[in-house]
């Protein structure tokens, strides 16, 4: 499986002439254009573990340091971006080929790949252009094969367990609430820019251009109740998605689903009782 993972990893990097050969071997209809790559992997879904596993929901920070620490634990000097999808897949492929201890490969698979990629790829399959659709499917399939080969043993990675949840804005303020909603590991939700555009369209609200927290704040300011209901529905939908792999990704998938369910409950409650309050804060 190593070579397939490497080939798929390469497609998460900027398209180059060599990609054509890989696209052909993989039997993909066509390779992504630079514009498609930029849209998906630069703007909507940057492929860094730290975004999806960090409490801040941003590139870098403690989540990246944790991945870098894993590289070091294997006796390797971490690259500049140790948590990039391609680097992690390259590392996993290498670990398999050089006969790294099974415990190390299992930890890499469950702590640093399967802890976030099923969520990430689910979203990618939803919003990606055609050239990336099949890529996401293949990568998910390959990872599920690996999950079967190296089962988790029922353990959930510590950083997933210890991630914070979404705080109540009535107690902790709107900033903390919004930050947590946009941090997938805390909310169980993965909200892209495209999602927020769709929300504005569906709710007939004005879309102000800016970073995601700015956009979300402006939606809440315009119609807090409707926005909260939309968010709650998103969270419920994510809870279902997290459970779709059933036992294959259990208990990691269950934990993600619980996060999303808790977020959905809070959002529902806020929508019913304090929508206007949230809008004010």
């Amino acid at each position, binding site marked *: *499986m*190593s*070579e*397939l*993972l*490497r*080939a798929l*990893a*390469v497609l998460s*990097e900027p398209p*180059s*002439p*060599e*990609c054509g*050969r*890989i696209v052909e*071997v*993989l*039997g993909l209809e066509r390779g992504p254009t*630079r514009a498609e790559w930029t849209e998906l992997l630069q703007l909507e879904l940057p492929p860094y573990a730290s975004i999806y596993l960090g409490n801040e929901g941003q590139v870098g920070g403690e989540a990246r340091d944790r991945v*870098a620490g894993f590289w*070091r634990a294997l006796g390797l*000097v*971490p*690259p500049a*971006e140790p948590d*990039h999808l*391609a*680097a992690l*897949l*390259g590392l996993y*492929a290498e670990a398999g080929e050089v006969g790294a201890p099974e415990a190390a490969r299992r930890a890499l698979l469950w702590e640093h790949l399967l802890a976030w990629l099923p969520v990430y790829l689910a979203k990618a399959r939803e919003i990606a252009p055609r050239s990336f659709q099949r890529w996401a499917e*293949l990568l998910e*399939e*390959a990872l599920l*094969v690996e999950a079967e080969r190296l089962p988790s043993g029922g353990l959930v990675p510590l950083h997933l367990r210890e991630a914070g949840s979404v705080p109540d804005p009535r107690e902790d303020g709107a900033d903390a609430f919004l930050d947590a909603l946009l941090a997938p590991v805390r909310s169980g939700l993965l909200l892209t820019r495209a999602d927020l555009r769709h929300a504005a369209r569906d709710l007939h609200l004005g879309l102000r251009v800016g970073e995601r927290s700015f956009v979300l704040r402006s939606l809440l300011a315009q119609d807090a109740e409707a926005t909260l209901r939309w968010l709650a529905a998103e969270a419920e939908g994510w809870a279902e998605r997290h459970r779709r792999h059933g036992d294959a990704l259990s208990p990691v998938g269950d934990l993600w689903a619980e996060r999303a369910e808790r977020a959905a409950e809070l959002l529902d409650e806020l929508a019913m009782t304090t929508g206007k309050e949230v809008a004010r804060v």
Partner: protein
Amino acid sequence: MNVHELSERVSAAKRETLARGETFYPGPSRVHLAAFPPKERWDDWIDVGPRGEERRVLLVPTTCFNCEAACGLLAYVDRETLQVRKLEGNPEHPGSRGRNCAKGPATLNQVTDPDRILYPLKRAGRRGEGRWEQVSWDEALDDIAARIRRAIVEGRPNEVMYHVGRPGEDGYAERVLAAWGVDGHNSHTNVCSSGGRAGYAFWMGLDRPSPDHANAKVILLVSSHLESGHYFNPHAQRILEGKQRGAKLVVLDTRLSNTATHADHWLAPYPGSEPAILLAVANELIRSGRYDREFVRRWWNWQEYLEREHPEVEPTFEAFERILGELYASYTFEHAERESGVAAETLREVAELVASAGTRLATHVWRSAAAGNLGGWQVSRCLFLLNALLGAIATEGGTYPNAWTKFVPRPMYVPPHPESWNELTWPREYPLAMFELSYLLPYFLREGRGRLEVYFTRVYNPVWTNPDGFAWIEALTDESLVGLHVALTPTWSETAFFADYILPMGVGSERHDLHSYEQYDGRWLGFRQPVLRAARERLGQEIQDTREVNPGEVWEENELWIELSWRIDPDGSLGIRRFFESQERPGEKLTVDEYYRYIFERSVPGLPERAAGEGLDPLAYMRRYGAFEIDRGIGPVFSQRVPEEELVDVHVDERGRVYTRTPRPDSPNIVPQPSPEADADGRRPVGVLVAGEILRGFPTPSGRLEFYSPTLADWGWPELAIPTAPRSHVHPDELEEGQTVLISTFRLPVQIHTRSANAKWLDEIAHTNPLWIHPSHAERIGVRTGDLVRVETEIGYFVVKAWVTEGIRPGVVACSHHMGRWKLGEAGQRQMMATVALDREGSRWAMRRSRGVEPFASSDPDTTRIWWTDVGVHQNLTFPVQPDPVSGQHCWHQKVRVRPAEPGDAYGDIAVDTEKAWAAYRRWLALARPADRFSPTGERRPYWLLRPLKPAREAYRLPERALA
């Protein structure tokens, strides 16, 4: 097809592709941890431009010429236009490993600079008048060669001088001068690293540290090596690796440098107090017994110290330990706090950290405090004391002497040492100076110590760089002192304005050079080459002369020196030409191809075999890859056993120095080494007896680490013979009421002296040098950020803008190097040189800015987009010379008064009285202890010390009248 089948299909495709010698995955991919085009595709790579356009390029390696690190570059040469499209890192370079700082890729700007000097120029009016005419290379070289020949033939060899800024090939220029028989080498080093070097040289003979940052447990820097300095990029990447592996970083810097921001401990000491801090740490190691006793016992010259300084005690190690404790007992943390202003508790924490490092302590100082203070050379001596106490020398994670990790391959010809001694560069006042007293040249000329018939400034800008630049202008405009001034330079400089000829030199992608620098525990060779020449040759063309491919008539130096030497000695009668003749074609000129072919085939171990493995000859290999790692893991050379075959008729003196009759074994590596004296019977020193074994030791007179330097003691400085903390000239007790200290030497990460002003990308990022001043200080004198302030030095003043920041210790001000470039008229570098007016009235000089930088139309549309006008202030003009009496280093820190500008003051104003500069010169000169009075041997200088272009032994002897 399921994913298993698909994976097998990918594997099969990969195998087939690799079998064809091609690359399956793109080079710049994270999947195989590489970020570079695969080397087998360097002949035909498809590069994607900024707008997504694809172009076929050749990738040709060279090395950067901007700072001394000589990092590897890869030029992307367009196969259609044969122009360089961009420069990136060369992954095959062992030192820089594919990484560069901003200055490397900006080489492209230097190639295409619209103000570039493309043809030889000869002055058309008076020297310095600013009028030029284009001349042919033939005309220029004939004139220069005739003058040099005349000086040599008429017995005036010391009137030929070559003054270098950015060094080129290791030893090349020295060998050219040796072939001419002139002691004419002059360097910039005494305004640079002499202080740092001296401290190391007196310890271990070798004058550069080579820390193994990547494997250190604690990294202690008295420098800013994450952003600048020797060797910034190769060291910075290894410092970060060390940090990634858990190393702690301690930085001593009065200013909050970028490096300090990455430190675990940033200490901002009062300038000049660094030795007090380092000795407090040493004292703690000694007091608490946390030093490597066995290492100290085996490798320090403690026995010599006791015998000479404490003859009353029995010379046992235990006695030495007791005295060592007493020597440093007064260097307490509280004392260091009083001197430095850094809390004793913080210093104690740092000492604990250092003590925990064991043999993994990597330390480094190069310029910084060592170049700023009177006695600054003791900074490196005190810093290395910590390594010497912990045994962290040539260990994994420790600090190496440089010569063990450097390789200078033996070339075809090594001319004999010159027989003359040039007192213009090596005056007898400074017998222990590490390098030439270059910045005192104008004073020596005016004092009548000599004159110059031909003076080359070679990629050097003393008018701008050196202190008291007006003294340089006075000397360079006096044709009775300087007969002919030839500026070899790739770009306009303030010094070139005062030349008779300006000869255009190539930048990093346009010249040949060989380098090897100590950047980790290994030895490598880097090959700088004219990339368009190499590209055309790869495409099957033959190039005879690099001018065929360089822009305009820009030349490279190796060919230039060969050509000039032939013109000096066209018939070979002077014995010069023979060193520049082909061996393959006797009687004809040596070509650069033959020169390098000889070296690569005969003098670089392992290279021919590696090249053959790729089906290449060694020269082709180096032209293709640009670098070769000779070996790594050199380890502690000092503790290697001397082979039996070197030990014949051995004599061991009473302190264990071992001498032998055998000649020094031939080595392909001719890296300069100190030359400790032979014994009374002419045997050469070969090692040192340690615990019954003859080990290689250090290249010092004792063969050991010289905690006690008999050289310093014997040549007039007994009070400084051990690591100590001398009082700096800017010590608070030396300041008058209202004076403060100016730090003037710090660099900005994207500029390099005056060489990078022709790089537009760099200029846009950094182009000015405000005065850093602490808020408390600013409030006291009533200035805010952007206000004009007048900074008064001993000889004049400059007017600059204030930048109020907490990034500087209160009571100290700082102003960056690089900035304040100027031109007198139209000729010059328009994107970074302000236009100024110079006025002189007797000894009083004034400079006033008439026009800042502004946009202009040129071949580069970016010059119309120049948005900056302010290019800083040339502060160095207002500094007097301040030679350290031991190392010869100019002590850069200045005692100044800072106050709001006066009515009528304008930004960039400079005023200087050169008579005051003369008074300062005489006062500092009086601190020296000249060889005439202090030489214990009747010689000008200790013969064992390193010296560039070391003359023959006979030339060392002082004239009888001087001794009398």
